[in-house]
């Protein structure tokens, strides 16, 4: 055993694997992505009782080594030592949910057969007890040939025993073999292995299992097979198909037959499932109409938190940045550098960090729903609705989160295991009207509707804008699903885990990791863009005392003039053009930019002076610039256009592709342009 051995933690989703990993490592963990895929790589450290250092890797949850998702492919490749960025683990800890023993043994038995020294952590023994399942642990250890430690990761019970087993000098190699491969399959695999060995596609001295699990992945690119080996893999599949057309299914059946035999020896359970707490809760939470009502209540509560409770901390952040800005203003001599720091850097970063409270609340909420097991119920209830546009229930929450901010929404799509569904959700989620659009909506609605109009009429316009974005998202989801995106839809298969008490520590850790990712990625990009936009609206400098004239002569002002021919058909003048350009950093910047353009002192809290100025602004012919038609055209533009650098940065990261990021920018902004054009031109033709 090497100096600091690497132990892999492996298990089904919902088996308590990550809770155990957090318990073992505490905060001593690093989170990154596996290069080339958006699968989280978590590495941590812990010490054994004897002060020996152990390195731990929390591998993605999986149901089988026959990979069906990028997560499962990573698990397979790490365990087989096929990833260059991750060494093959020295030992394996398989976390097995005792209350779901048979199904969990499916993956466990596959991993055992790989022959690495293994410890089994038999988790959730309390839940199994509650179900009156009797598990003969010594017998199970004897049959599998590896140590089995009972534990409860949620309370930490059994942790010491597990650590002791993990750090044992000698760990036996597993004895378990479910069933010999049928002779025809074995013969075919021998031939395929020989061929793969020739080109170095598999390890030397590899067992038959490596080619077997590579061939059972239906996505050869995901299997990390280089192009030169693709033909071999295809031929291998054909050879196996020819030998036994139902080979995959037969291997599953054989394995379960062996597991059933094992369970007859080690597991004694009641004939009928007892009405557990989970069943009783689900009776109400998934009740035909109470279930829907619960979802609604939870969503209303979530939105209350995001839009009302988050207001306080958002105000503090704003005040803190404003104080920092005025402190710098006072401490530094006037000049370009001071302006750069105050107007460029501090203002720009403040514009991003201000969304942090909403993002934290959202991730905390998502964490609780995931950890308790309610998330699966939400997907179960919403699946039928989402299926109308070709998505599944798991896409619901990421999409919903995007009404607060598309950044956490896009990040939350990691729970969607079908790559196609996940990509479509990422592409349409920013069409949900996020909170950054709200100030723009408020300003423009108040600009074109006279004070005499009732608040209800204004509110209904607002609701209409939200509905428009939602319909747009559904339409594009449907279109992408039907037309653009190739590949079959993966079937919706959802496990409904047992409810459990959420672990605050795990949730806070998740919130912290997500917030850090947001600040690091979006923060750096926004920081750069803010400085660029500041520079564009400052240089070249003119000596006019009037800020609006200085802006007009700047690069941004010239750019506004430059794009005027493009946006004039939508009814916009060059001043609105400057606002649009500024909005590409973040939409709410529109309000600030317009107040500079019109040289109006405007605050986000009180838009009255700016609104009055917009109402009074006229064209050369004396007609108002902000006619109802222009305002509606502009509102529709803001509903659809992709004007958020933070989201683009996150989309790039989560799709791992510049292409999809640009595609999203162009289809969203293109749609915005075409619709705004249509509204203004048809409206003008009709005489509005």
């Amino acid at each position, binding site marked *: 055993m090497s100096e600091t051995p690497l132990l892999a933690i492996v298990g089904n989703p919902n088996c308590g694997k990550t809770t155990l990993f957090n318990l073992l490592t505490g905060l001593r963990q690093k989170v990154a992505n596996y290069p080339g895929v958006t699968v989280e790589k978590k590495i941590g450290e812990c010490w054994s009782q004897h002060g020996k250092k152990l390195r731990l890797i929390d591998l993605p949850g999986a149901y089988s080594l026959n990979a069906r998702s990028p997560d499962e492919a990573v698990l397979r490749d790490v365990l087989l030592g096929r990833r260059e960025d991750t060494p093959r683990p020295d030992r394996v800890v398989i976390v097995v949910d005792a209350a779901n023993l048979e199904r969990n043994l499916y993956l466990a038995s596959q991993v055992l057969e790989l022959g690495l020294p293994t410890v089994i952590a038999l988790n959730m023994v309390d839940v199994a007890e509650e179900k009156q399942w009797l598990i003969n642990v010594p017998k199970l250890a004897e049959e599998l040939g590896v140590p089995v430690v009972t534990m409860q990761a949620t309370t930490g019970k059994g942790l010491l025993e597990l650590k002791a087993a993990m750090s044992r000098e000698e760990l036996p190699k597993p004895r378990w073999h479910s069933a010999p491969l049928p002779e025809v399959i074995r013969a075919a695999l021998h031939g395929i292995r020989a061929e793969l060995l020739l080109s170095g596609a598999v390890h030397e001295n590899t067992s038959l299992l490596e080619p077997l699990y590579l061939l059972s992945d239906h996505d050869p690119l995901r299997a990390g097979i280089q192009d030169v080996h693709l033909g071999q893999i295809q031929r291998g599949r054909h050879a196996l198909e020819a030998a036994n057309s139902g080979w995959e299914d037969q291997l599953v059946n054989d394995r379960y037959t062996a597991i059933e035999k094992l369970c007859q020896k080690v597991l004694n359970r009641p004939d009928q*499932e007892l009405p557990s707490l989970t069943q009783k809760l689900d009776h109400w939470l998934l009740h035909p109409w109470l279930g829907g009502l619960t979802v609604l209540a939870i969503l209303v509560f979530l939105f209350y938190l995001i839009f009302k409770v988050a207001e306080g901390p958002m105000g503090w952040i704003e005040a803190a940045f404003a104080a920092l800005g005025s402190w710098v203003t006072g401490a530094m001599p006037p000049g370009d550098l001071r302006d750069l720091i105050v107007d460029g850097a501090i203002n720009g970063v403040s514009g991003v960090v201000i969304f942090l409270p909403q993002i934290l609340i959202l991730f905390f909420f998502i964490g609780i729903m995931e950890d308790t097991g309610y998330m699966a119920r939400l997907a179960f209830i919403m699946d039928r609705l989402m299926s109308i546009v070709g998505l599944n229930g798991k896409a619901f929450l990421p999409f919903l989160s995007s009404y607060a901010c598309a950044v956490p929404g896009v990040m939350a799509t990691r729970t969607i295991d079908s790559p196609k569904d996940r990509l479509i959700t990422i592409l349409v989620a920013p069409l949900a009207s996020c909170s950054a659009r709200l100030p723009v909506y408020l300003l423009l609605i108040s600009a074109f509707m006279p004070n005499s109009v009732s608040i209800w009429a204004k509110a209904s316009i607002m609701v209409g804008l939200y509905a428009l974005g939602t319909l747009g998202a559904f339409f594009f989801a449907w279109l992408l699903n039907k037309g653009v995106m190739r590949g079959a839809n993966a079937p919706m298969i959802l496990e409904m885990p047992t409810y459990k008490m959420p672990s605050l520590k795990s949730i806070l850790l998740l919130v912290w990791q997500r917030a850090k990712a947001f600040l690091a990625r979006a923060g750096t990009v926004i920081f750069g863009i803010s400085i660029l936009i500041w520079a564009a609206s400052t240089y070249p400098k003119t000596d006019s005392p009037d800020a609006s004239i200085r802006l007009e002569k700047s690069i941004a002002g010239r750019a506004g003039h430059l794009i005027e021919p493009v946006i004039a058909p939508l009814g916009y003048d060059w001043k609105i053009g400057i606002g649009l350009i500024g909005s590409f950093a973040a939409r709410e910047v529109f309000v600030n930019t317009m107040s500079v353009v019109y040289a109006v002192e405007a605050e986000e809290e009180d838009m009255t002076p700016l609104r009055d100025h917009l109402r009074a602004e006229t064209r050369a012919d004396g007609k108002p610039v902000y006619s109802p038609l222009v305002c509606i055209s502009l509102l529709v533009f803001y509903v659809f256009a992709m004007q958020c650098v933070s989201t683009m940065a996150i989309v790039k990261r989560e799709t791992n592709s510049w292409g999809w990021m640009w595609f999203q920018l162009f289809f969203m902004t293109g749609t915005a342009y075409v619709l705004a054009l249509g509204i203004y031109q048809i409206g003008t033709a009709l005489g509005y």
Partner: protein
Amino acid sequence: MHAQLTLAQLPIGSAAFIHSLPTGRVGLTRLRELGLTPGARVTMVRRAPLGEPIEITVRGSHIAMRDHEAQHIGITHVEQAFNPAQSTTTQA
């Protein structure tokens, strides 16, 4: 002879044994790996509020799927099983 009864038709609260699954289809292979192999006993727990998906239990775990998959899974020996959900309903 009757047409083969499918999992999609199993009444709520009833149990049956899986008789057949078509081979060689990706989604159905995954369902097999989750425990729905021929001979396994399944119980229909409920349908979602909007009619789909269905929730079943097999080998002690609870799985949801759409009719699209369930209608390919042949079942036999349907039995009216004890239903914990019904007993709580009568109490309520």
